[in-house]
């Protein structure tokens, strides 16, 4: 067990990996993301990455949402 708490961001997940949203680092972005059903406590799975590496598509609250990597990096996972 390590005492260092790593901050895991959504942008760091690989395709097929799943995480649970903990909090957001950008208030303005978080308002938009929450409206789209991406809320704290919600499970998110990276379903694919665009052919050029950005943006990414995630599976969240029953549908597929695409967002840019920079936007995904404002989402902190548990």
């Amino acid at each position, binding site marked *: 067990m390590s005492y260092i708490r790593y901050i895991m961001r959504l942008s760091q997940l690989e395709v097929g990996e799943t995480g649970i949203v903990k909090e957001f680092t950008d*208030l*303005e*972005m*978080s*308002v*938009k*993301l*929450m*409206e*789209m*059903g991406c*809320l*704290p406590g919600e499970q998110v799975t990276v*379903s*694919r990455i*665009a*052919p*050029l*590496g*950005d*943006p990414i*598509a995630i599976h969240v*609250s*029953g*549908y*597929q*949402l*695409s*967002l*840019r990597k920079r*936007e995904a990096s404002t989402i902190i996972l548990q």
Partner: protein
Amino acid sequence: MNADLKVALVGNPNTGKSTLFNVLTGLNQKIGNFPGVTVDKKTGYCDLTDGRRAQIIDLPGTYSLYPKSRDESIVFSVLADKSNPLRPDLVVVILDASNLKRNLLLYTQVADLKLPVVVALNMMDLAKKGGITIDVNAFAQKLGVPVVPISARKVEGIDQLKSAINYANKIALQEDTIDVEAIAPQLIAKISEELQVDNPYYALQLAHQHETINFLTPAESDRIEELEKECNFHSQKAQASETIARYNFINDLLYDTVKKQETAQEESMSNKIDKILTHKTFGFIIFFAILLFIFQSIFAWSAYPMKLIGDLFVWVQSSLHHILPAGPLTNLLVDGVIAGLAGVMVFIPQIAILFGFISILEDTGYMSRVTFMMDRVMRKVGLNGKSVVPLIGGFACAVPSIMSTRNIENWKDRMITIMVTPLVTCSARLPVYTLLIALVVPNKNIWWVFNLQGLALTGMYLFSLISAVTVAFVMKYLLKARERGYFIMELPVYRMPRWKNVGYSMYDRSKAFVLQAGKVIIAVSVILWVLASYGPGDRFEKIDQKYKQAQYSQHVNPDDLHRVIASEKLENSYAGVLGHVIEPVIKPLGFDWKIGIALITSFAAREVFVGTMATIYSVDGDAEKMESVQQKMHSAKKPDGSPVFTVAVAFSLMMFYAFAMQCASTVAVVYRETKNWRWPASQFAYMTVLAYLASLITYHLLK
């Protein structure tokens, strides 16, 4: 038509809202504009079961009443502004049953505005397939509103929905969703009191949106701003806590009314398709194949109907000339107004075909994958993944392409796309290029396979794409963004296109173009007609008198004489005079006054170039006689005996046509799409400057 009842359709994008609208209204619909914005306002009429008539208003799809784009802000304005003539008596909120959670957010917001609400639960079949069972009665009871399961695609449940609309209450009876006052108690109380607002959620929305909504007076807006400072109101924090509270309500509601069967995680069809369509290599190959197909089809399928429309108008014009008494009024009607009308109608096939394809791409869900794949490249040059389709469509015609930029939500991206699309080589430039290339580029092959003329033409096409991207890149730094750029976008599940919607979309767009851009095009056509067919003073009479003399009328055959007169009249018309006036300006580009006339008349449409050249060089004025135009131009000599059309002049001219905004229809459509003359004016200015510079450089390099 008078309606007894106004009904607004509200819902998330991709929930089948427009399908429902089409089902309810049939072809009985009207497209207008919401005042001041470029959002299409779709209204239609629907006969209810008791013989009353309802006006149905289709509002733009949105995920929330807090708008992400200007289009979405319409929804709140229509629903909340009591003085808005479209304010509905009843709101039908359409929910996607297979994705209730996110869909319900908008419902709870609309419900809290306390307008009478009916819920249409669409895509029940999809929900069932996904293992979702909804207890509709319990659901309706919890919300306190009528809930009607429907399938807009299969036209099921529509009669039940109509009768629910029929018997809907005149007052809102829905249950409260969240405790709105708790979000900002002081502020809501103060706004309610000072602005005499009786609904707490409306008061809260005013606090959030007072800067952007247009139905508040400046004094009211300033007062709200003051109150916010007094109460320490933080808009985004309040929005965040509101959204969380709403989702808590939704989770409780769904927990009691919806059962989701945990099916074995079977890979969905949509996911399988996505694996191919957004694949690293196949994804791009398929996308470019689709683009190529669309591009080819716009060319190939529109050629015949366009010729038919063209021929029809030629026939109408010549018959009217025979029927009506000769005179200036007849000429104005036939050669000005009807010629302008022909210029409008001839675009319909291309517009219809492009929008047919775009609507298929959007309906199936493929368009958002295009955006997903292309976003990274396009973002670098200040564009958006969605700019790809207008840019490629620009190869056929800028007019429908600019109309298609509407689905770009981001204001700045959309404006840049509109500004650069006319740079792409459209089909009207093709006759100009082929004429000039044939004139100066030898018809020879190099390395056996590459034809020089073909290479020159391909070069012009590639050059246009490069210049469009370059200009976009520059504009990225010149234009200020109005909103922060987001790319939070739903990738909807793949579905079969609904052919009726495709048909409606083709019809809608063509109609909107004819009605709205058509006026400007006809006006410009009339002005250019006057310029080309009248001259200052008595110049025209003198020409007529001159050729009435026996030496001409007896010795020259009538057809030739007719052409010589037309040519001389054009030289002496206002357009000809203008050609002489601008000669000093265009001389550095290698152009003489004759080319000057062609440049002026080409501002109606580029393809007019060939016809004008034909008239000036007194060839029978028909584009099909291209070869004879070419011969005449080839043998045209300057006073000193050297040829007019050298390689330098021809390429300089092509550069001018590549950059200049010589298309009244595009100017008109840019105005229609931007609702501000500043945009078409600055576009016209920058393109003319670029055209001049490019021609100047080309001429001096090749001279």
